């Protein structure tokens, strides 16, 4: 075959593959985007879908249940707070007053059932989403915590 035709076939093959990948991507994105909510706008979240909820762990709210493994606490953006329950080992940097991001679903009773609790690797680091949530609630207290 001529050079031109070979090039045409190569381009067509590439585009076919790319098209297939794009289709896969779009399909996968639909189901797997986890939207982030702060406590203030959690009521706009779709119930039952996995989402992320982030903020500060409210002081004095961490309680262990009787089975020892389940923990309940409240996440707050200093304007509103949401009860959260989690079963498992909490990450090392999970502490009252520290920022945290949880992944899970909003239960029918308004409690957030967390599947994963993510606390950052450094006590000075605050995830950008939490910073924005605090700014929105008007409780942002300056850039000290955000700078490295």
């Amino acid at each position: 075959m001529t050079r031109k035709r070979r090039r045409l076939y190569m381009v067509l093959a590439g585009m076919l593959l790319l098209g297939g990948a794009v289709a896969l991507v779009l399909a996968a994105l639909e189901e797997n985007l986890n939207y982030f909510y702060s406590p203030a706008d959690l009521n706009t979240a779709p119930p039952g879908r996995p989402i992320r909820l982030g903020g500060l762990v409210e002081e004095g709210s961490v309680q262990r249940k009787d089975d020892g493994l389940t923990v309940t606490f409240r996440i707050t953006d200093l304007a509103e707070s949401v009860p959260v329950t989690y079963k498992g080992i909490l990450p090392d940097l999970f502490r009252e007053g520290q920022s945290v991001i949880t992944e899970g679903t909003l239960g029918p009773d308004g409690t957030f059932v967390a599947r994963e609790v993510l606390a950052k690797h450094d006590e000075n680091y605050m995830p950008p989403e939490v910073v924005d949530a605090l700014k929105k609630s008007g409780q942002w207290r300056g850039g000290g915590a955000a700078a490295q």
Partner: protein
Amino acid sequence: MIPELGHFALILALVVALVQGSVPFVGAARGHRGWMELARTGALAQLILVGFAFFALMYAYVTSDFTVVNVVANSHSAKPLLYKIAGVWGNHEGSMVLWVLILSVFGAAVALFGGNLPPTLRARVLAVQAWIATGFLAFTLFTSNPFLRVFPPPSDGRSLNPLLQDPGLAFHPPMLYMGYVGFSMAFSFAIAALIEGRVDAAWARWVRPWTLAAWCFLTGGIALGAWWAYYELGWGGWWFWDPVENVSFMPWLMGTALLHSAIVVEKRDALKAWTILLAILTFSLSLIGTFVVRSGLLSSVHAFANDPERGLFILLLLCITIGGSLLLFAWRAPALKSGGLFAPVSREGGLMLNNLLLTVACATVFLGTLYPLFLEAFNGAKVSVGPPFYNKTFVPVMAPLIAAMATGPFLTWKRADLSGVIGRLKVALAAPPAAVILALYRQGGPVLSVIAVGLAAWLFVGALSEWAVRVKLFRAPIAESVRRARSLPRAAHGMTLAHAGLAIAIAGMTAAASWKAEEVRIMHPGESVDLAGYTYRFEGVNSVLGPNYTSDMATFTVTRGRRFVARLTPEKRLYTVQNMPTTEAAIHTTGLADLYTVIGDADGSGGWTVRIFHEPMVPWIWAGALIMILGGAVSLTDRRLRIGAPVRQRKSPAGAAVRA
């Protein structure tokens, strides 16, 4: 005094880079020999200057000089020496100096060992290296100066993050940077070739060793990072498709594609423009990786920094580098003469398929990593993309690649006989059913994982089959096979090793992801729990004092039936200076699986939260990665790669007389 000298050395290096980036270019265009040679001197001078700056910073760390801000923020007098040294690059500013140091090492290597490169090409390559160095030196000096002083000095430093006080992670950045920066060599060669207007076999033979070396280091760096996350973070996982992980993975994918397409350029003088584009894209992805990690743009499990000003500078750097190089490509690529024709079923065709699939796979990872960013820019929604996305997009693209990889080495250039290839793979064809049956028997499902294991087996036996055919294993006497194996080019052994290593790693990854077992519960001393055939007996918890931490150390006795297997001691440490807790998992490897134990908090009444994982075939992931790196290293020792450009043998009378 020393930090000031280091600072000054960096400034000098910037000036040298500016000169090295301009004069040789003019010299190459005009054919002025002296100005071209300036590039070599410049590269060596840069190495000396940046090296001095790096060691000046290291000196400040080792002597715990707390008048230097960087040392205060990231070190402590009580830290062990290894981590004081590792602390040099365990922070943003220091790591930039390391980046530039490795850049200058590669530049100096071209200056010293590039004797048989055409002088114009060498001059241009070193000049492009100097441009990159200029950008990063400017970034370091203007936004991330590690030599800033503070008076009066505090009495002690604020210590390194305890998570980073770990041998695995100490070497993770240097290895990664050797990879990223190594791809800058391919980039420089590509740009130089575009400006020259000529890409030939000699160029490809020169690009390959650098790309191969960079690839080996990047593989090692990624594997080290994954291994560290596995044993340090205590979640039993080793890959989270976190943005920081993805940005190291994307250059790896494109670098692999580059390695393979460079072969076509060298052997068949084809796919030139595509290879150049790959070189540009690979390095661009390395740069994007730097940007994402340091700008605080994406929320990630282990984000590095949170500083928009630096992010803006790097964004500018990115736009100029990537935009400029792509523009140059669009302008000059048509000048490259295209090479030989080939049939779709041929070695070239196979390598093209390899490239296509790798590029598409990289594109899916790119989309998943940066989509949250675009979405936030457009409508303010904050989203994250998790592992299920990548499992649905990346894995289906890689699967056909793995399937084709076994046949690839059998294909001949220009036109290959597919039925003949399949014929030679008869033994390999038996492997997937065997593996599938074994997996179904042991685990029962899920279907996709079983198929993946079958694919891995296919690749493994296929890679070995090719090697066996070449040395006529089992078809000729052993001595003959050994002789053939010895005279095979090293690159052939390297290829077999690398492909087989990948197969092992994929088998490990599939098993680890699909058949992991976990137990989380409260345990009191004396209690036992069973998991995957092993019995874990919780003996109790002791308090232990470390050099800069206190620790709760638990003891587990692991038995299988009656046989003693291991005693595991997971810890929960508290590092005193930073008041930061860490989890130290205890792992016992049986070669086929890992027994992974984690201790959590006490519940106040004598019980402890305990997490036990049974991780099947995880050791195979690390083994596979090591074998891949070994394969790359073996390929690097191939004698053919040492010869830069083909040397024409001139038969002179005197020479003939001497030879006779």
